[in-house]
């Protein structure tokens, strides 16, 4: 552990401020809470929101896992994991089942989470209505009055033009039958895992300085029409490494002659299923 830093990098007052905002966020599921986002030693868009939330909830006994697009071994995941290993001295892991805090970018682990786990999302654009209504004052009013008809206009247009809703990631959800929420850019495939999750789910948007949360066992419904119900899509292949047919797949180009491999995006899940020699 590196000397000279406060536990988990942020000072105690900042962590307290973030925890207060998180308590509000948990009290109003899906509602965005402003917080005084700090400069972090990594660029906006690399997880500054998630890293601040993680710093605020991390305790000395926690075990941290960081995933980026499902993988534990990419630059973003490795450097954030090492950051907390050095500034907080916490134990880190790549195994989902061993972790107590999981910071994630763009995926939810394949295996179901437990009540003693916290999932922290990195969020680029917290406002689900931003593309429909550019005014922040107006979107706040729309949230306050639960005027979410405009979002369905977007779905209507998709069905009209493409025959189905073409949103494949960051698919808008209604949390606790009340607040429209952006689930961060997780694939729509992962949306059902948000619903009635045993784990506490926290979302941090560093650039936009907003926090929100889904408490455990909360209803999360993906928006849809009665006659065009929400459904997930998945590449029609089995994982080329472990053979899984129910996991979310990455398509990996393997050579310059059209060769490609479909494999689980959740590397920990995939490794756990492969025989070890």
């Amino acid at each position, binding site marked *: 552990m590196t000397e000279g830093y406060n536990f988990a990098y942020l000072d105690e007052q900042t962590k307290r401020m973030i925890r207060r905002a998180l308590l509000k966020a948990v009290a109003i599921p899906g509602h965005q809470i402003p917080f005084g986002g700090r400069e972090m030693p990594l660029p906006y868009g690399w997880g500054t929101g998630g890293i601040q939330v993680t710093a605020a909830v991390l305790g000395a006994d926690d075990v941290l896992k960081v995933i980026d697009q499902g993988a534990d071994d990419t630059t973003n995941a490795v450097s954030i994991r090492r950051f907390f290993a050095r500034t907080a001295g916490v134990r880190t892991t790549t195994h989902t089942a061993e972790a107590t805090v999981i910071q994630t970018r763009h995926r939810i682990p394949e295996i179901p989470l437990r009540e003693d786990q916290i999932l922290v999302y990195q969020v680029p654009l917290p406002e689900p209505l931003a593309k429909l209504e550019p005014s922040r004052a107006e979107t706040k009013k729309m949230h306050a*009055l639960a005027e979410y*008809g405009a979002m369905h*206009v977007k779905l209507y*247009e998709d069905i*009209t033009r493409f025959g189905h809703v073409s949103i494949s990631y960051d698919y808008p959800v209604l949390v606790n039958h009340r607040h429209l929420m952006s689930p961060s850019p997780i694939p729509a495939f992962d949306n059902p895992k948000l619903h009635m999750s045993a784990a506490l789910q926290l979302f941090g948007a560093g650039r936009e300085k907003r926090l929100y949360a889904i408490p455990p066992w909360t209803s999360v419904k993906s928006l849809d029409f009665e006659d065009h119900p929400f459904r997930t899509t998945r590449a029609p292949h089995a994982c080329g490494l472990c053979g899984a047919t129910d996991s979310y797949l990455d398509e990996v180009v393997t050579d310059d002659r059209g060769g490609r491999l479909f494999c689980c995006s959740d590397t920990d899940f995939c490794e756990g299923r492969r025989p070890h020699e």
Partner: protein
Amino acid sequence: MSDTLLSARDLSLRFGPIVALDGVDADLWPGEVLAIVGESGSGKTTLLHVLSGQARPQGGVVWYRDPDGHEQNVHAMPEPALRALHRSDWGFVRQDPRAALRLDVTAGGNIGERLMAQGSRNYGNIRTEAAAWLARVEIEESRLDDLPRTFSGGMLQRLQIARTLVTHPRLVFMDEPTGGLDVSVQARLLDLIRGLVASLGIAVVLVTHDLAVARLLAHRIIVMQRGRVVEAGLTDQVLDDPRHPYTQLLVSSVLQA
């Protein structure tokens, strides 16, 4: 006058030294078309905004009878209730349809928006309803999936009317609905509005500077000058036998074709 749909008493509003409204009274009964006429700057659009709750008067009150029969003070209503009213029981047709429509959303999506805002969640039903309304405003159903930017000015205005009427409002505010359209398109649009208003029994508050539009659509007429109502009465009575000098001037200045 207990059965009025909308009733305004002693409205006043000043913008600095400019008197926009000065002791204005107005009444609207269910199913009636009321025209507000006057020259530019006479306060007619301000009156429309005050009646529809979009602007707050400095004095006076506007009463609205909701579908349950309760009288509501429009400017004392909480904002959620007023916005809900604007989404369902009321409609607002603007002069410029481009300001009211979503130009990057298909005609069907534009018409369906108010239905979805009211909680319709069945794609097939919304689409059927949108197609039916497109036909009612005399636009071919094959244009249902086209973007409004491919529509002509007259079609855009008819699309705006379909989008407004789809929730069957009881009261529609119209601000110069035929402004900026050529004469033959205007005539067709007026004919359409008259037919729809009569068949659906909608009450309309219509702002226009065009006396011909008022004569064709309105049952009653209010003539405004410098924020005051100078004459009010049945349309034919006011236009055929104007009593106030200003109304006489307005009527006599209409070009005879």
